[in-house]
């Protein structure tokens, strides 16, 4: 079946919608934002449940600390801001007030990645996944599209521990036609293959599907998996893909240090070492620009995935030859 690109709502829209629904059945949910409610979409909740919504002002450290106190007192706080401000300005508070006491707080960073666009690097987040996964006990989620963001927001609300979820600013192409069975910590195999596994999350899942299509023309049958949960990682799926395909390419809208690729490499190193290629943001900040132009400029495209896939396939063949020669 040929791929057709269908843009759905942004993942932040999906989050806002589900959050407002959850408010009706979960009176213990309290929502807090740091003066970005309209952008993060927590405003959808404020409109319906103004008594359980607080704009703390532009004070992310205070936001996180207050959430810790609320959670220690039986509430379930959902806190949001741009991913960069929430994670970078609230980090010690995330550590001391939430992660260390293992409190049930949902941390929602919107405008993740560089597709935030024209505002430029100061409003973008290329380090949030690395920071979040470094907090012991945190579950870390990067949904690919609106349907999965809805399902994962529900799953996150049902999960009894701290969760970080990254949402995005732009409309996202639909990759999940159905969302039954979508669960935290469980990857989704969108397309099976035997030669190479493309493991992606966020907007890169769509790009991976496109890349798989193009690789097919090279005679490469590529599997595509959405690993929306970076932590806990679906190690079983990753090991299985490594074993069956013998090569992996990871793709994410995040720095290559400390994101999905790093997590997959660690897991594969332990279970079944195979060549891995990495598509992500190199050692740099991005800049202002139209989101699509930025994604191209920083190599977050199907083209780039294909390029890295070819190199990784070559690594795989070289290793196979070396092994055949007893090397």
């Amino acid at each position, binding site marked *: 079946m040929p791929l057709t690109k269908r843009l759905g709502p942004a993942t932040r829209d999906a989050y806002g919608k589900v959050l407002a629904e959850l408010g009706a059945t979960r009176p213990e949910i309290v929502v807090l934002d740091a003066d970005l409610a309209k952008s993060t979409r927590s405003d959808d909740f404020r409109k319906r449940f103004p008594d359980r919504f607080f704009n703390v*002002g532009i*004070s992310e450290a205070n936001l996180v600390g207050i959430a810790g106190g609320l959670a220690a007192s039986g509430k379930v706080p959902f806190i949001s801001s741009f991913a960069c401000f929430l994670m970078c300005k609230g980090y010690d508070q995330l550590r001391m007030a939430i992660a260390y006491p293992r409190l049930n707080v949902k941390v929602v960073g919107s405008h993740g990645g560089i597709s935030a666009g024209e505002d430029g690097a*100061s*409003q973008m987040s290329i380090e949030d996944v690395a920071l979040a996964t470094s907090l012991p006990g945190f579950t870390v989620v990067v949904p690919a599209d609106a349907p999965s963001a809805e399902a994962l927001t529900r799953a996150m609300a049902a999960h009894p521990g701290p969760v970080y979820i990254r949402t995005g600013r732009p409309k996202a192409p639909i990759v999940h036609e159905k969302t039954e069975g979508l669960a935290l910590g469980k990857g989704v195999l969108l397309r099976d293959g035997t030669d190479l596994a493309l493991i992606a999350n966020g907007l890169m899942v769509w790009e991976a599907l496109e890349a798989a299509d193009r690789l097919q023309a090279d005679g490469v049958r590529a599997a595509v998996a959405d690993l929306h949960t970076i932590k806990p990682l679906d190690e079983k799926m990753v090991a299985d893909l490594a074993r069956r395909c013998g090569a992996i390419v990871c793709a994410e809208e995040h720095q290559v240090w400390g994101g999905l690729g790093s997590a997959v490499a660690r897991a594969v190193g332990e279970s079944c070492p195979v060549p891995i290629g990495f598509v992500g943001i190199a050692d740099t900040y991005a800049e202002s*620009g139209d989101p699509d132009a930025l994604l191209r400029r920083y190599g977050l495209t199907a083209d780039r995935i294909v390029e890295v896939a070819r190199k990784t396939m070559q690594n795989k063949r070289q290793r196979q030859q070396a092994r055949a020669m007893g090397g």
Partner: protein
Amino acid sequence: MQTRLRELTDTARQIRRDIVTMLGESGSGHPGTSLSTVEIVTALYFDVLHHRPKDPAWAQRDRFIMSKGHGVPAQYAAMARAGYFSTDLLKTLRKLGSPLQGHPVYGATPGIEASTGSLGQGLSIGIGIALAGRLDKAAYRTYVLLGDGECNEGQVWEAAAFAAHHKLDTLTAIVDANGFQLDGRISDILELEPLGGKWTSFGWEVREIDGHDLGAVLDAFTWARGTRGKPSLIVARTVKGKGVSFMENNNQFHGVAPTREEVAKALAELA
């Protein structure tokens, strides 16, 4: 003085036109916050700052930091009009590869002294620059422009305490008190008054002015230069969106660029 004021008023009008035009061109950005700062930024670049636009790295220059980084279009326009770079560059604002980034970036644009855009940080950087000047026995002054919403950030108050403790009288902060932040009115989100009183109690010399009265703005900077033994703060009471009728006190224009029609309407008002 009267002709000087008339000239500056005209420059301020031109800068407002530049802001509206460049944001219309970029299709994104923050009109309201830029427009409320225009008299302050005009006074700085065309009267107050000792600077050499063609030599932005001149060691003795006064430093200016736009801590509320989303207001940078006003600064870019003033810098272009003052001769830092061509006014042609203004239309590249926020475009891929442009030196005019959506928020100020140190190193990307000549004359930008600090990367800002994550609110609450500019005053600390300004303190560092002023401290270095003291250590080097340099004569330059440091100016930092803050938003009133930005004063929600705890770091602003950490910085305020430090500057007063160290008697940094070469440092002047200006709060662009336009009464709004992103999601609404300051008074509805997080009460900040008495704003001047807070800074006074932190050990600053404080003066409160109408931030759109250019004469008062100039006087306040003269006063600030004369303060000794304490950092100085100017509370500039302003109107968000000032100068464009349909943007004034209309927070819809916090972070939404004007359409083509709105640009034309605004430019007609600013003729």
